[in-house]
């Protein structure tokens, strides 16, 4: 049975709380209450054209070539997104890597999750899921 939070006891800060145009947009407003279900990581979800992994704790000087070179071991990497920190210019710390097949993706995940990559212990998981109520 999903439990609804009845009363907000959090510390609040910001003009948004007194801005009437936002009154019913707030997270805790009745109209927006979400059942507080567990974020159970259920079944990995296929993306439009392939299977996407989410990698975190990357070394700040990681390059796309570094990622492609290593992750191509498990199958051809079709797409990479390696975003930069907009302030520092180093990588933000995460990347998305896409494979065509589930078996390539799951092999990469099993081999590289908690592996040492450029001196950092990275985490590798499937990026998307079917959600908590599959």
């Amino acid at each position, binding site marked *: 049975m999903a439990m609804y*939070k009845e009363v*907000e*006891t*959090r*510390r*609040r*800060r*910001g*003009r*948004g*709380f007194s*801005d009437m145009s*936002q009154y019913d*947009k*707030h*997270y*805790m407003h009745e109209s927006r209450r*979400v*059942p*507080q*279900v*567990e*974020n159970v*990581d259920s079944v*990995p*979800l296929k*993306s*439009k*054209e392939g299977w*996407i992994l*989410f990698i*975190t704790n990357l070394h700040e000087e990681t390059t796309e070539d570094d990622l492609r070179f290593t992750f191509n071991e498990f199958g051809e990497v079709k*797409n990479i*997104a390696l*975003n*930069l*920190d*907009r*302030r520092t210019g180093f990588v*933000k*710390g*995460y990347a*998305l890597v*896409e494979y065509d097949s589930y078996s390539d993706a799951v092999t990469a995940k099993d081999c590289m999750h908690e592996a040492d990559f450029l001196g950092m212990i990275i*985490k590798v*998981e*499937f*990026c*998307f*899921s*079917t*959600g*908590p109520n599959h």
Partner: protein
Amino acid sequence: MSDFYIRYYVGHKGKFGHEFLEFEFRPDGKLRYANNSNYKNDTMIRKEVYVHGCVMDELKRIIMDSEIMQEDDSLWPPPDRIGRQELEIVINDEHISFTTSKTGSLVDVSQSKDPEGLRCFYYLVQDLKCLVFSLIGLHFKIKPI
């Protein structure tokens, strides 16, 4: 389960209608994305997908590293006719709900009454957009804007 929620909105109502970008991550991992631009092709893009807990963890890390939860919008320029931005974040015992006008450039930021806070907001918003555009863009194979 500790609560974690984030919503960002930027938009304005002008001669081309209501143009906006909004995304939210819900505690159960659902990412909801909407982009309405009437300028070129009058289409609304709405997408939803569940992300794995590791994405939510990374999002939380990015937010905590930015230190936005220690900031306050009281000295930031208020929303105006040019546009508005909204950032709402719930992390455990803290709930922030900031509103401000559209941010022009870093020059505008450094000339404001709270350059440190607004700069923090400015960079966090850019980092959030990067993450969301990558998630939506790669999953749905669309150009999100």
